[in-house]
């Protein structure tokens, strides 16, 4: 492994910042093409209703309206393909609407105002049904069912009865009951959290140009152009080859833009109008009808011996899926308890349907919730056995070779190093004495990810290169990928023009998500750069008149082992490509099967105003194993940004509904994310335990950072109050009620 880096670990300026700071970056709503029409979606005002009839004639007759579509314009779905039916129903409702904001029809018109007027002219007859807004309600035997055809899939078995529970998964290790019998102390708690939105400010927006030959171009804000392409193909039965998706700059995503909400609708509008069409969602539509992270009910029980060793851990986890099956319920049970080496345990996870928008992914999906519950139980258990919370975690921390309850076998990880760094951190050692103040710590893990990535590198005649990947840049990955190529090519990073390709210009690349991009697309770039070097070595050999086996490439020079004077620099050789066989393109296509997990531990100090219940974050430190920080500033930015989002989730955020299923806070005033004045300076410490699965040691960093904050703040608030709040968000009102200041 290379240990002396020239580019990796430096802090060059991101290539996109000038455009972004100056307002010149092209985001999806900026797309303007001549003849552009504006689309608007008619959404259900009811959370649960049967659609009896739809009359679009008045809307169609309105001057300036070019197309009106409903679900009948979608392809026919085979009766046995429930999954496809759910997907299509979420773009344009079929027989029923299942949440407030559920799309029913869409229009394209010559202005947004005409489009807004037109959707008001669409007449719909509803049979209003009882909305199911609460998981406990949904799980009752006699509750109304969202879908008549859904039967519980319990441990892979269909139980035959329709219901609102759509999934049950289970993992068992050892003998949980025996483990509890061996414990000296047991803590058993129940936690609830609400649906939370990712908080990105750029609403979904797509523009589509449908050509009469059946080819179509889509400009959209997404985490992955290829997933938009395949979703349009799946929903509308169109060949992938006819769909070109051009990703724009992205104004925040955090998992929300892995899935699509409007593209197939815009495609159909463009097709029927025979004009390009754009839809940009409003903030209210975004909050009501995109994919938040699920609300949960979580029962967590852990037991430990007096010496601090955890003997058993069990969890029963319920996740709100929203209106359709498919949530983090399947994956989350693999995330809980995985930080620790626990001999016995059981995890059961359930997915429950309710009349809310279908959930999606939010940064470390499901992990935040389960860690929020587990890390509070861990804290209580540490107290019960009279141990420092970090010492307690160090006794139980997972190591290379540890097997989790769900069967994850840890590879080389930096879990212990992170906890030790917390223990030695000045923040952790500092005293915190004043009344109403509290300190909390929490530990978290995210497995990170690999998946498919492609990269090409073209060599320019002056020795600079252009690099194209299929990875949408959410966080500076254009730069972190270019840095890895530059390291291999022995050139400086400003010689690499790095850009994001569209689906017609680069090979398949999975979406930017799961903290995979700098790792996996970085590997593709390394492979492409090596390919460039190999091809250039052949040219060098011919110019230097030696067999290619004698060419070595080091520190930017092609040299021969026979003659020390004969050498060619990268740029010299680049200038001679046209005399030696023509242009060179290096390519990398990877699908790594192993990657390095990330661990993070955070420390928070808070103060609670006993009269108002308001929480102030006084000091915050985030410590994380980042593998190798390709660009330390960007890594710190990921860690700090994660904490900011975690503060919002811990204290204020949640999608709140009335009993009729209408959202009470579908605006940016009442959906409260942290603002700049709500957060302290967030200190960071980067621990570098290199991943063995990447030549530079890179691990994913974005999601591990988001796993601890809510638990950290919950533990700090509990310390300040001397009492624990078992639900999120920990609003001032809830704190006053917990402290018996108000009823």
């Amino acid at each position, binding site marked *: 492994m290379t240990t002396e880096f020239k580019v990796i670990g430096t802090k060059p300026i991101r290539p996109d910042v000038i455009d972004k700071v100056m307002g010149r970056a092209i985001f999806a709503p900026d797309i303007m093409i001549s003849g552009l029409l504006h689309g608007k979606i008619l959404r259900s005002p009811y959370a649960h209703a049967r659609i009896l009839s739809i009359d679009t004639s008045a809307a169609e007759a309105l001057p300036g309206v070019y197309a009106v579509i409903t679900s009948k314009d979608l392809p026919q779905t085979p009766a046995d393909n429930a999954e496809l039916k759910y997907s299509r129903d979420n773009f344009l409702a079929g027989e029923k609407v299942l949440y407030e904001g559920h799309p029913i029809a869409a229009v394209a018109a010559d202005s947004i*105002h005409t489009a807004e007027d037109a959707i008001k002219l669409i007449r719909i007859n509803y049979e209003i049904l009882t909305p199911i807004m609460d998981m406990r309600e949904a799980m009752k035997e006699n509750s109304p069912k969202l879908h008549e055809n859904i039967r519980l899939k319990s441990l892979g078995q269909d139980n035959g009865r329709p219901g609102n529970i759509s999934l049950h998964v289970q993992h068992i290790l050892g003998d949980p009951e025996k483990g509890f019998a061996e414990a000296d102390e047991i803590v058993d708690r129940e936690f609830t959290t609400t649906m939370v939105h990712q908080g990105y400010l750029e609403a979904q927006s797509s523009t589509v140009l449908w050509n009469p030959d059946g080819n179509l171009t889509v400009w959209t804000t997404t985490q992955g152009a290829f997933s938009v392409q395949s979703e349009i193909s799946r929903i509308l039965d169109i060949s992938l080859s006819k769909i070109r998706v051009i990703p724009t700059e992205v104004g925040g995503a955090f998992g929300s833009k892995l899935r699509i909400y409007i593209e197939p609708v815009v495609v159909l509008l463009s097709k029927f109008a025979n004009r390009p069409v754009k839809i940009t969602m409003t903030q209210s539509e975004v909050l009501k009808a995109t994919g938040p992270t699920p609300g949960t009910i979580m029962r967590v029980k852990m037991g430990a011996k007096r010496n601090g060793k955890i003997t058993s851990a069990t969890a029963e986890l319920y996740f709100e899926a929203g209106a359709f099956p498919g949530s983090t319920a399947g994956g989350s049970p693999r995330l809980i308890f995985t930080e620790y080496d626990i001999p016995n345990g059981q995890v059961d996870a359930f997915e429950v349907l309710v009349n809310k928008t279908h959930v999606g992914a939010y940064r470390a999906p499901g992990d935040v919730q389960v860690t929020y519950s587990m890390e509070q139980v861990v804290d209580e258990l540490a107290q019960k056995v009279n141990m420092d919370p970090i010492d307690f975690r160090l006794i139980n921390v997972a190591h290379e070779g540890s097997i989790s309850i769900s069967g994850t076998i840890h590879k080389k990880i930096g879990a212990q190093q992170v906890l030790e760094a917390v223990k030695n951190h000045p923040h952790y050692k500092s005293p915190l004495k004043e009344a109403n103040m509290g300190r909390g710590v929490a530990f978290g893990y995210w497995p990170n990810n690999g998946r498919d990535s492609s990269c090409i590198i073209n060599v320019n005649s002056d020795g600079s290169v252009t690099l194209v990947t299929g990875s949408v840049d959410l966080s500076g990955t254009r730069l972190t990928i270019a840095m890895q190529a530059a390291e291999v090519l022995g050139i400086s990073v400003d010689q690499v023009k790095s850009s994001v390709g569209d689906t017609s210009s680069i090979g398949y690349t999975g979406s930017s998500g799961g903290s995979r991009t700098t790792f996996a697309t970085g590997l593709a770039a390394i492979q492409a750069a090596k390919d460039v070097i190999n091809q250039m070595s052949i040219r060098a050999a011919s110019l230097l008149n030696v067999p290619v086996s004698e060419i070595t490439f080091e520190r930017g020079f092609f040299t021969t082992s026979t003659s020390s004077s004969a050498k060619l620099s990268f740029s010299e050789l680049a200038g001679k490509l046209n005399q030696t066989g023509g242009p060179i393109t290096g390519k990398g296509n990877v699908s790594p099967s192993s990657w390095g997990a990330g661990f993070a531990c955070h420390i928070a100090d808070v103060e609670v105003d006993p009269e*108002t219940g308001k929480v102030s974050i006084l000091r915050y430190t985030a410590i994380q194993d980042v593998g190798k920080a390709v660009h330390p500033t960007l890594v710190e930015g990921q860690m700090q940004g994660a904490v900011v989002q975690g503060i919002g989730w811990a204290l204020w955020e949640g999608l709140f509904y009335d009993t009729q299923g209408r959202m009470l*806070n579908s605006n940016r005033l009442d959906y409260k994310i942290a*603002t700049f*004045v709500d957060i302290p300076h967030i200190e960071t410490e980067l621990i570098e335990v290199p991943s063995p699965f990447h030549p530079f040691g890179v691990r994913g960093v974005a999601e591990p950072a988001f796993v601890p904050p809510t638990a950290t703040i919950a533990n700090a608030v509990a310390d300040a109050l001397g009492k624990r709040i078992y639900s999120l968000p920990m609003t001032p009102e809830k704190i006053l009620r917990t402290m018996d200041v*108000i*009823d």
Partner: protein
Amino acid sequence: MKQFDYENAKTIGEAVNLLNNSSKNVRPIAGGTDLIPRMRNGLLEPDILVDIKNIPELNILSINGDLLEIGAAVPLYRIYEEERITKSYPALIDAIKNIGGIAIQGRATVGGNLCNAAPSGDSIPALIVHEAMCIIAGPTGQRILPVEDFCTAPGKTALGRGELLTTIQIKHPPHNTGSCYNRFIPRNEMDIAVTGVAASLMLSMDRTQIENAKVAIGAVAPTPLLVKAAGEVLVGNAPTEEAWGKAAIAAQSAARPITDVRGSINQRKHLVGVLTKRALRKAYLRAIGEMEI
């Protein structure tokens, strides 16, 4: 958003004429920071907007003798940048510095905050304890109304058809007076008050007695309220924690809050007490010159 016409009024008379229209929905626009979001959300659909920002009288910000005059189109930042005002009207300054953020304060007006008549409008309790007067121009001439009578229901004011708020007048507070506005919001900016309380105190020359006192509460009733009973329990008493406690109880019993997504009845009732005491403590410190704005 529905299509609308825009009129740029140059005089009060022109504005009043435009507003006095029986067949069309006509609205004045000052900073537009309440109006435009409401129009975007489809809550208001005016046919005509009358811009009042270019009427010279409405841009006057002056102190003449002991009278402060704030034109209805004066943006908030001009008020808190004027040192003579910040010194004498601390409750008002507390309030307007709370409204939105810097960008909003560059555009929004006190007049708009008042005419919007939100139960939570931050400047209104402050204007009440400063005993502000509203100067109103209308088709039949000018009239004057005490600010506590201006708001009549959520979003409703005492203005009739064709009437325009032109100016807010406030007398200079006497010696030994201090005032304060404070509100509770869950975050630290960009929130609407869950509860807001303004208080002003005038002390005796030797500062041992309260000679005049006003407490006004916001976001806990259909309109911001002057709590006369809270003032009455203070007058004639010494400025002590005990007195603040009595005023807090009086304010709490005047509060008639609702439960909504921003707060519950119990929370708001409780906060009225907490914020009344905090406002009085600060007002007292300001009255004795021990606390700056």
